[in-house]
């Protein structure tokens, strides 16, 4: 009897496993036919992404199974699980150099530079070098998903009220000293307005002698997310990394000695961060560094966006992704936004790269590809071809482009800056920087995993953003720490 029952349970177990196995093989056979599987590592455009895939199926008859992660979900964990399953994604998106090593070493990513034929081959060859996802300068592993950029976001109407004309071009071109003087003058002006004079790009401007309808709300110059380590740990420091490295590949390949060359740029970073966090706007008046400043309930992402969108701050350092957040608070403000460069007090000695000088760095904004579509190298050749066709369609057909620009609200990597406009002010500001060739890249992505936000950002947050007064020795400590941790983690 006992044996019989053991036998029965083994049969039951076998049955249940065969059900699982059956389920798996069913999905493989399904994808073997006329369909591909696209894994989208962005959660915010999940709905529109599914609609785009449906549109592709309607046009070509090829079924596109698509998966978008949930908002805030860890896209890498989910992607690894999918890669371990029988039904691997044909196309998957990754965050550039930061995530490439894993997929390259595992042999999951197809080298697209080997594809030389057809429309897709031409498209891949035409990806500008600065936007190419390459681990050695020769290979090319991805098609850019979109481009993003960041800088100091400013409300043009606010500037016009302060200057009674549009000074953006001169602020963009201004030197760091002029900028720093403008910032401190503004802090004084906010405390008690006077027709003070500021020099920007050599031109003298006179500030309004009285507060106007927008500027009466100002409580400080900068709205800063003190509790968000990535804003100063990743993005702000990236501007300094740009002084030495031109691309994330250069940063990733850097020797200890080359990393050591960042010392000067990182001191400059600390100085610029000091200026920024010494002229803070708060929700109910001027704010200052201290323990409140790193509290997520007071200076988190949403709080800082709100401070800016309610015209309480002149500048907010963020990217075009923040457009929707600002629009959520005040759609009028959102319609008048523009980017200004993040300026740092670089000297010629700090800048080690030859293709940019101090003036270039201080008049450009970082514009880079945050995500790439990569093709799975482990799927059949026919699948790969289907993936190429899909990616070509997405970036070149009228329908595909319409989805990228109008539904995803993205800036296409291959957009012609002279003719492309997108339906939001910040996107258009980025396009104009691309058009005038005033862009930096995102070499911090080539730094060791966890170095920027989780190491330097954390160090700055825990030890300095909580501290009211900084000394030049602090600049040095921050720079030393940033350089030595990069070298250790390499």
């Amino acid at each position: 009897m006992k044996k019989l029952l053991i036998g029965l349970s083994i049969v039951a177990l076998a049955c249940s496993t065969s059900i699982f196995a059956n389920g798996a093989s069913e999905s493989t056979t399904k994808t073997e036919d006329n369909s591909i599987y696209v894994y989208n590592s962005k959660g915010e455009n999940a709905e529109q992404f599914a609609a785009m895939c449906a549109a592709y199926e309607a046009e070509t008859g090829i079924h596109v199974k698509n998966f978008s992660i949930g908002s805030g979900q860890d896209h890498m964990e989910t992607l690894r699980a999918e890669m371990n399953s029988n039904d691997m994604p044909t196309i998957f998106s990754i965050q550039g150099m930061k995530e490439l090593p894993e997929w390259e070493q595992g042999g999951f990513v197809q080298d697209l530079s080997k594809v030389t034929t057809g429309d897709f081959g031409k498209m891949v060859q035409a990806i500008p070098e600065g936007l190419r996802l390459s681990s050695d300068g020769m290979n090319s592993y991805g098609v850019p998903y979109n481009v993003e950029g960041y800088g100091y976001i400013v409300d043009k109407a606010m500037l016009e009220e302060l200057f009674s004309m549009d000074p953006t071009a001169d602020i963009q071109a201004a030197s760091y000293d002029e900028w720093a003087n403008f910032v401190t003058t503004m802090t004084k002006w906010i405390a008690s307005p006077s027709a003070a004079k500021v020099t920007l790009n050599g031109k003298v401007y006179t500030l309004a002698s009285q507060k106007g309808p927008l500027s009466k709300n100002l409580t400080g110059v900068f709205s800063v997310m003190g509790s968000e380590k990535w804003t100063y740990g990743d993005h702000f420091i990236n501007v300094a990394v740009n002084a030495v490295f031109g691309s994330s590949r250069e940063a990733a390949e850097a020797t200890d000695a080359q990393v050591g060359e960042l010392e000067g740029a990182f001191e400059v970073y600390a100085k610029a961060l000091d200026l920024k966090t010494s002229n803070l706007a708060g929700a109910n008046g001027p704010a200052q560094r201290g323990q409140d400043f790193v509290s997520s309930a007071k200076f988190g992402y949403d709080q800082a966006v709100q401070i800016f969108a309610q015209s309480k701050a002149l500048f907010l350092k963020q990217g075009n992704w923040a457009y929707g957040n600002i629009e959520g608070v005040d759609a009028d403000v959102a319609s008048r936004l523009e980017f200004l460069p993040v300026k740092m007090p670089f000297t010629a000695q700090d800048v080690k790269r030859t293709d940019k000088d101090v003036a270039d760095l201080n008049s450009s904004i970082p514009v880079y590809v945050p995500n790439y579509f990569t093709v799975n190298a482990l799927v059949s050749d026919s699948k790969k071809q289907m993936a190429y066709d899909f990616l070509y369609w997405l970036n070149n057909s009228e329908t595909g482009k319409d989805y990228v620009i109008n539904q995803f609200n993205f800036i296409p990597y291959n957009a012609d800056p002279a003719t492309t406009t997108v339906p939001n002010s910040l996107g258009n500001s980025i396009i104009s920087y691309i058009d005038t060739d005033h862009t930096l890249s995102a070499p911090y992505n080539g730094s060791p995993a966890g170095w920027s936000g989780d190491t330097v950002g954390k160090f700055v947050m825990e030890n300095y953003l909580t501290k009211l007064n900084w000394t030049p020795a602090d600049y040095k400590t921050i720079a030393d720490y940033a350089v030595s941790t990069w070298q250790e983690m390499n």
Partner: protein
Amino acid sequence: MIPKPIRLTTIIEGIIMNIYKKWFWPLVAPALILFAAVVLVPFIVGFVNSFLAWRGTYYFNPETNSRATSFFQSFVGLTNYKEAFQDERFMNAFWYTIKYAIVAVISINVVALALAVFLDSISKGAGPFRTIFFLPNMLGGLALGFIWQFIFQIVYTDILFAPDALLHAEFLRYMTQDTTKALFALVILNVWQYAGYMMIIYTAGLNNIPTDFYEAASLDGATAWQKFRKITVPMLMSSFTICLFMVIANSFKLLDQNVALTDGDFNTRMLALQILRTTKDSTPPNYGKAQAQAVIFFVIIAIISIIQVRATSKRELEY
């Protein structure tokens, strides 16, 4: 004459035992299959992986510096374990967790016992109080963490203990921004969450103490404190064992509250969070090392659990 009721129960017992014997495997099989599928097999796979250069989606061959073609190429022996113990972050998390466990065990049990004794001593309204004290235990760790983050950052810092408030206490402000203070913040959160639960166990223990003991002691002129020391505490020993070890085990496994409250900032990473974040500390992710940490973690929890079972059964024999 044998009384009827006993015979009836014997018959029922016999039938039940017969059913149990016959249907033992079919009844146990579903649970066994589930246990094997979601606990046993993954554990064995994980244990094996802790000796390999596992990268999450593939195995790495350290000799050729590329993807391994077989398990054996990826075998690294005890390297992952060595790296785990050499990892400063892992060791910090380990000691921080131990410190937390000590403070938490004392605080939670003192509060839980106090609540239980209090409820035992009042005659009216014990029910609602018991429900209220137990209620926090119904909330998830993440939700609790975020609620308490708000309490610490706003209520403690700006309202209750602010410089212009009545109860100005600087050490209770910015609780989440300092390694030591954050440890106590986490303890406060967990006392709030677990004390009600432990209280139920103590209440059950208190209910099992015969009232004659207290009556006899009163006749002998014992004070309330003497009664507590000499009767309540010894009689509650089995409850103590259960509660102590439940809190220790929970302290080691604590994750959600740690993530939500400080996310490891200001050196507040605990063991579970450390294991979770190890895969983010390098590219490609070192899943083998994370797995080795998980095995060490398992051994710690296993030792605690074995001691718990031993100690509990030893106490039970005494009664």
